């Protein structure tokens, strides 16, 4: 069903892209066509105009006879007519002009373009008309029209195919987010369904046992409620990253404070902590986000550490590294540990929501910090660089 939706979206995108590009392309080739046509006619008219003026100039001279026009160079398909003041044709070449009325300047008469000019000779007004039949030119332009049409069509088809291919890369990040979201929802529902089952089945038992010997059942329910509380608050935290006021946070101090908070747990496991500071690490951020980021990393380093283990923290400007001697993460799982709800060896206890490291990643991403996890033969190494 959902795949279908993505295909639909892809087709829609393809359709819109090709429609828009076809429209643009058509407008473009249309304007080429009209511009070219206009330009061509303009050129021809200019030519006719200059011929008309040349003739006028020559025949104005009273001694010059109209017959010199016969020897003038004129473009193919063109003709020249000269009318005397009585509107009789006194000369023509190429074709007899049919002029409905006398005029000066350009006129388009049928398939002809004609330029008219008048001049004075022997005290009368003569008219010269130079015309050219456009049939050949128009045929030429018509050919251009066809070429443009087919070109537009072909390019549109190519764009259609390209758009379909491109639409995949447009859709795929959306699809990725969608799938991630879906996985997340499923994970959330999974992690809420099991505790719900724990509670409902313990309640069933409490009733069945008529409220006798139910300490263990109450304990189960309490534990589960705690887990759900943590889960819900962690989930809420995701949407609040970056919401608080940002200040310049000194991470050296922040990390030391966080370690202080975990002192009881550190003493319980007798973990040795070593901090090397090569300068001050500072960042412009909401303090709570940084507390959450480093708090989670330190908590994990303690939680998954062994008895008498060690945690080594290196602080440099723009770089922090937290190494721990916990159970080494398998190489193939290094990428997965930042996924929501991922637990390498799903612990049997419900301690933690399984969201810790994904919160770390989310905060780091928000502040454009790079989190990396690496394993050597002794340590799990979490490093943050920005």
């Amino acid at each position: 069903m959902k795949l279908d939706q993505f295909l639909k979206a892809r087709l829609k995108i393809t359709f819109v892209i090709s429609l828009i590009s076809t429209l643009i392309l058509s407008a473009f080739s249309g304007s080429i066509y009209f511009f070219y046509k206009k330009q061509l006619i303009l050129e021809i008219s200019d030519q006719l105009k200059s011929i008309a003026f040349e003739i006028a100039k020559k025949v104005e001279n009273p001694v010059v006879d109209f017959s010199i026009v016969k020897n003038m160079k004129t473009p193919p398909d063109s003709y020249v007519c000269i009318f005397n003041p009585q509107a009789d044709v006194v000369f023509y070449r190429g074709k007899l002009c049919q002029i409905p009325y006398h005029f000066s300047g350009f006129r388009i008469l049928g398939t002809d373009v004609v330029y008219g000019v008048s001049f004075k000779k022997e005290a009368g007004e003569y008219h010269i008309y130079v015309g050219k039949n456009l049939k050949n030119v128009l045929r030429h332009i018509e050919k251009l029209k066809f070429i443009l049409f087919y070109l537009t069509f072909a390019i549109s088809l190519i764009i259609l195919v390209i758009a379909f291919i491109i639409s995949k890369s447009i859709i795929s990040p959306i699809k990725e987010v969608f799938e991630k979201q879906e996985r997340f929802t499923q994970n959330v529902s999974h992690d809420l369904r099991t505790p719900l089952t724990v509670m409902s089945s313990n309640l069933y038992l409490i009733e069945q046992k008529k409220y006798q010997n139910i300490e263990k059942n109450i304990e189960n329910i309490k534990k589960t409620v705690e887990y759900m509380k943590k889960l819900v608050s962690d989930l809420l935290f995701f949407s609040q990253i970056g919401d608080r006021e940002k200040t310049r946070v000194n991470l050296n101090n922040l990390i030391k404070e966080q370690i202080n908070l975990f002192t009881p747990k550190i003493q319980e496991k007798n973990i040795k902590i070593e901090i090397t500071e090569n300068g001050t690490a500072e960042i412009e951020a909401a303090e709570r986000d940084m507390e959450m980021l480093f708090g989670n990393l330190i908590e994990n380093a303690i939680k998954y550490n062994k008895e008498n283990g060690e945690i080594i923290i290196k602080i440099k400007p723009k770089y922090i590294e937290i190494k721990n001697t916990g159970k080494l993460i398998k190489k193939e799982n290094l990428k997965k540990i930042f996924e929501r709800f991922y637990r390498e060896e799903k612990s049997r206890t419900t301690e933690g929501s399984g969201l810790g490291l994904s919160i770390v990643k989310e905060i780091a991403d928000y502040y454009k910090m790079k989190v990396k996890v690496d394993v050597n033969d002794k340590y799990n190494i979490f490093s943050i660089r920005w």
Partner: protein
Amino acid sequence: MKVLVVEDNEELNNTLKEILEINGYNVETAFDGEEALDFATYSEYDAIILDIMLPKIDGYKVCQILRQKGIKTPILMLTAKDTLQDKVKGLDIGADDYLVKPFEIEELLARIRALIRRASTEKSDVIKIGDITVDLAKREIVRDGKKLMITPKLFCILEQLLLNRGKVVTYESLMNKCWGINDYPTKETVRANIKLLRKILENKDIIQNVSGVGYKIE
């Protein structure tokens, strides 16, 4: 009757164990896929309750491996996923039924009964033998409208015999199904319990000896 509960959430696992025990089942628990395979391969169960999201080996894989090994124990899958694909996948792989979390305990119990019934020769929860009526769901034995008092162990033996009516139930099978992993029953223990059972039923002929092998009810 013996059921294996495979669930990685410790609270849920323990709670299910308690519920099933209250309802007269003999329960063993496993917390990951590996454990589940070990248990199911080396011990005999009437049903397995199998969660899907398990550490080490997931529930689908466990189910698949068990079926490949030819173990036909009815499997009820517990799943927190309720998409159609998940259900179909589970059933295709060889699970007999599935239940989506959170489920009603009554439903869980009914489904386990149904699964066990399906695998047995008896198709009803209420069985009559002679003048005795045995209700497997309520775990009661009634004669002439009067309930007979019976210990869970004896009921378990009777249940095993009834579910395999007409077939011989071996000593080993009874030892396996009605005694826990920490008890060490012998043939003598079984014999003693059968004797007690016959006494309670006030009828020696219902349970027949199949000498050297076990017992059966016709």
